[in-house]
């Protein structure tokens, strides 16, 4: 158990020290975090709702909606 704990601590320290000693990596992480923020908190939230998930509660309703779309009068 102590060995396992020790392993987790070592892995944790590995990451912490790695992040601390970054130079260029810090800039890259800033870009990654900014990018993820724009993607998930701006684009996804305000511009990209999952239409079927937002507008319908169950899979059955979603399926019926798509079925309706696919079979509505086309060009006959």
């Amino acid at each position, binding site marked *: 158990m102590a060995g396992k704990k020790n392993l987790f601590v070592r892995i944790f320290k*590995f*990451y912490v*020290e*790695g*992040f601390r*000693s*970054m*130079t*260029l*990596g810090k*800039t*890259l*992480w800033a*870009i*990654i975090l900014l*990018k*993820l923020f*724009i*993607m998930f908190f701006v*684009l*996804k939230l305000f*511009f*990209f*709702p*999952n*239409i*079927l*998930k937002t507008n319908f509660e169950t*899979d059955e309703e*979603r*399926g*019926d909606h*798509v*079925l*309706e*779309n*696919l*079979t*509505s*009068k*086309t*060009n*006959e």
Partner: protein
Amino acid sequence: MIDNLDMSLVDWSRAQFALTAMYHWIFVPLTLGLSFIIAIMETIYVRTGKEEWKTTTKFWMKLFGINFAIGVATGIILEFEFGTNWSNYSWFVGDIFGAPLAIEGIMAFFMETTFIAVMFFGWKKVSKKFHLISTWLVAIGSNLSAYWILVANAWMQQPVGVTFNPETARNEMTNFWDVALSPMAVNKFLHTISSSYVLAAIFVVGVSAWYIMKKRDLAFARKSIIVAAIFGFLTSVYTIFSGDGSARQVASAQPMKFAALEGLYKGQEGAGLIAFGFFSTSESDPENENLKDFTLKLEIPNVLSYMAFLDWDAFVPGVKDLIDGNKKHNILSAEEKIRRGKIAIAKLREFKEAKKSGNKELETTLKNEFTSDAFQKEYFRYFGYGYITNTDQLIPHVPLMFYSFHLMVALGGYFLLFFVYVLYLIIRKKAIEKRWFLRLAIWTIPLAYLASQAGWVVAEVGRQPWVIQDLMPTMAAVSRISTGAVQVTFWLFAVVFTTLLIAEVRIMVKQIGFGPKGKGGNK
């Protein structure tokens, strides 16, 4: 609903998807290829113990890190677009997309992120061997991730291993391995990764050439060129073979795409390959602006037939055979496919109405009829044709296809010659310092990106109008949202991605300027 569809919505949604995918693809091929070049360099370091190889590995690892960091997650936006802009499609594909993308997500997360950390943080903390294994696992992991994405893409080009369930309006996977190991997926993967390796090798040679031109870090630059040139030469040769496999696959599964990329209007036995050609501005068919006549062409007899079917005299259908039909060669006309598609849609409608009215018996009968092998084979396989209003919609933009395909092939040939020349210089111990060559090497970098993007134009524009080959055209796949909203997000993406690209180029140029010994370490 489809009859009221605003076609500009379809066009803007397509443009947005194309923009996102093309920007995403700027980052991906370098990651796929550079990861292996780094692994090879580190292997040399571990085997020889020479510090200069460690420095070389760490420098290219740094550029890999920049590209990875800027490019990572740009593909997620494509998934957002599926849910918003292509909701009918994303429902219709069912779990076919879910399974490969979930595997990709898990693989990318565990393999890449875990071992990337060891790759960047572990130089002084883990053994040389463990570090090397991690570097190889990053390379293998990122390439396997690409495999699952390409499985999903290949399924759209050739839907296999599924049955459509009318009750849920979804395709259900009947055989995972048919989907995962479809010839289309395997060929697409091999061609995509090998061409990405070529791109990365060109990148390494080009950047190294810049150092030689500046007369600095010469030993490092020469070592990098040797590894990249050998890697680039081998993968260039393989790219030609994998491209050949891909072309054969397209010829059988997507004959219209194949005809379009060669500008073949009328089918022929012993069809020639147009090695070189230019279209006139006038239309071959006045009613279809996608069909232009050639003003100039250089044709190599019988090669197209061989390329498509490994038979010098095989019949290769042209655009007109696929539209008008060809009884001799058992090719149905587009009108007939449209008729069958409409029957499939009508049957699905009947089923929907029976379900709505609560008539269980009729519902079961119709479901059984719809899912019977005979109906699937005769009618459902043409389901998407039922949405086509004019047979011209079935023809992709021939000049764009032809030029993209020939540009990709010509550049692929040039890359091979380029690597042959570099290897010649290395083997003959001739100076690589010739300025014209160094300039050429640098300018070959954008050409590699151009070839890579052209390949995707061939793959994706060539399958129009299909979002899923023969089953679902773009007009049936698109969500009924406002065109204005799609336009806004199109420009938003253009700004975000261009900013990311500028950031990538600036950071990379700065780090290249610092050189392998660097400023600010190698983390």
